[in-house]
């Protein structure tokens, strides 16, 4: 067997698997979206049915807010942790990256423990501390799993910044807020765009957290789920899935072209 043949052979299992369980099902999904009463007009229908449109807008709004909040929190924490060495730093870092492996449902449960009827805040402010099942609870849930992802991306980029850049700015007389604005943020910009895109895409598609918290809130994954299971409106579920998939894939594609890699998992 020649080397070329062997290398080709190495791709065969992957090709079979990816074709059978990825390519064909995705094609089927796209076709299924056009098999309803409206045919391919279903995509037009999404934009003209108030319920779907509101869902779409609401999902985008929550995701954008989460993205902004996660960027603000994680950039602050990430820069602080990269630029300071102190006892307990490693522990702090572990705590901040721990939720990477939490499934969305567990994240939802964490928010219930904070803001549910038996939650921490309701125990401190009885009668006023229940927010877990509101849109704010959903926001917190998404923020919970976005913080570690954004943090890791920001820290990876911050560690690559040459400390001499900051020192040079200081020797030229720049005060720290100018150093941040003129040196650090520009150097971090690609990572911030990438991390933001990751946070946005993950929030758009997050099902587990919504499943636990958003029983009464219309966000895209929940609407897809109810269309499929309760209304048995297969075509609409498929069409919304295709739409969601294109949006999240597009965002992550953008992220990759900015930073080269994406941070793993969950949601």
């Amino acid at each position: 067997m020649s080397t070329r043949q062997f290398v080709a052979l190495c791709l065969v299992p992957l090709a079979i698997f990816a074709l059978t369980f990825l390519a064909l099902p995705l094609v089927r999904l796209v076709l299924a979206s056009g098999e309803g009463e409206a045919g391919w007009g279903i995509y037009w229908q999404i934009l003209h049915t108030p319920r779907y449109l509101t869902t779409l807008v609401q999902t985008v709004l929550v995701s954008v807010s989460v993205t902004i909040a996660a960027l603000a929190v994680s950039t602050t924490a990430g820069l602080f942790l990269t630029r300071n060495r102190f006892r307990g730093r490693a522990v702090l870092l572990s705590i901040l990256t721990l939720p990477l492996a939490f499934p969305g449902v567990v994240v939802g449960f964490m928010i219930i423990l904070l803001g549910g009827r038996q939650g921490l805040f309701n125990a401190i402010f009885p009668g006023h501390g229940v927010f877990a099942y509101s849109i704010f609870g959903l926001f917190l849930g998404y923020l919970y799993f976005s913080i570690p992802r954004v943090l890791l991306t920001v820290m990876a980029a911050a560690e690559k910044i040459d400390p001499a850049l900051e020192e040079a700015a200081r020797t030229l007389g720049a005060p720290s807020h100018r150093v941040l604005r003129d040196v650090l943020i520009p150097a971090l910009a690609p990572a911030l765009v990438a991390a933001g895109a990751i946070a946005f895409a993950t929030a758009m598609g997050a099902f587990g957290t919504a499943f636990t918290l958003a029983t009464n809130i219309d966000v895209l994954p929940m609407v897809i789920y109810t269309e499929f299971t309760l209304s048995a409106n297969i075509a609409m579920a498929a069409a919304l899935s295709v739409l969601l998939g294109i949006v999240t894939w597009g965002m992550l594609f953008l992220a990759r072209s900015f930073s080269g890699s994406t941070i793993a998992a969950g949601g």
Partner: protein
Amino acid sequence: MRIGKALQLAVTLLAAAFLLVPTIQSVLAGVTVNYFQGIRSGLTLEWIAVVWELYASSIFLSLGIALACLCVTLVIGVPAAYALARSPGRLSRAVEEFISLPLAIPGLALALALLQLYGSYKGFRMSPAFILVGHVLYTLPFMVRSVQSVLAAIDLRTLEEGAATLGAGPVRRFFDVVVPNALPGILAGALTVVTLSIGEFNLTWMLHTPFLKTLPVGLADSYASMRLEIASAYTLIFFVMIVPLLLAMQWASARAQRMSQ
């Protein structure tokens, strides 16, 4: 400057508290007799026992699927990563991009796609293999990338040429030179695959059957229908399984990354 630093520290600590406090709550709730009354009601392992009785099969199913998923991703992923590393180019990039789609497309959409195409094959639909397919789809890109990045960092072509001039054919070179030198990447990939498979919910929720519930599916079930202490105890068990795996995964990934620099 001082104020700025204090503010940064405050934000960092607040974020850590936000992530940590509920996990501690859940650990405590899982071993408290009555969470509503608090710790004063006493500590107990009773809830853990209840969880074990109710959900042991879910836990074992998840472990089984995670191991099976690991085997499949090793068999498919390691040779594929090698082939992709051996032939860099636009086609390889396209293949990589394509198999990474399950990271970009929400699990829900993927699960719908699988259900549309294979849902009517009852024997397959009702078997654990159906869930396994979903998990492999989702974890395979991690294995491929992890191995590929280590292989890209070593001078694979020259090492293989060295082995070839000493009389080793392609298969021998794969097992004698490629695999041993890719081990850090394989290890990091394997830990990632197992960690993600055990925690996978988005795909699994759509693919599972009432008789085949994985650990996270059981968790969702307990959150919806059990008292808080049981849900917490179950979450505690999940933490005990996942946290060491996560730490090991982070260690292995950092090690693989260090080696590939």
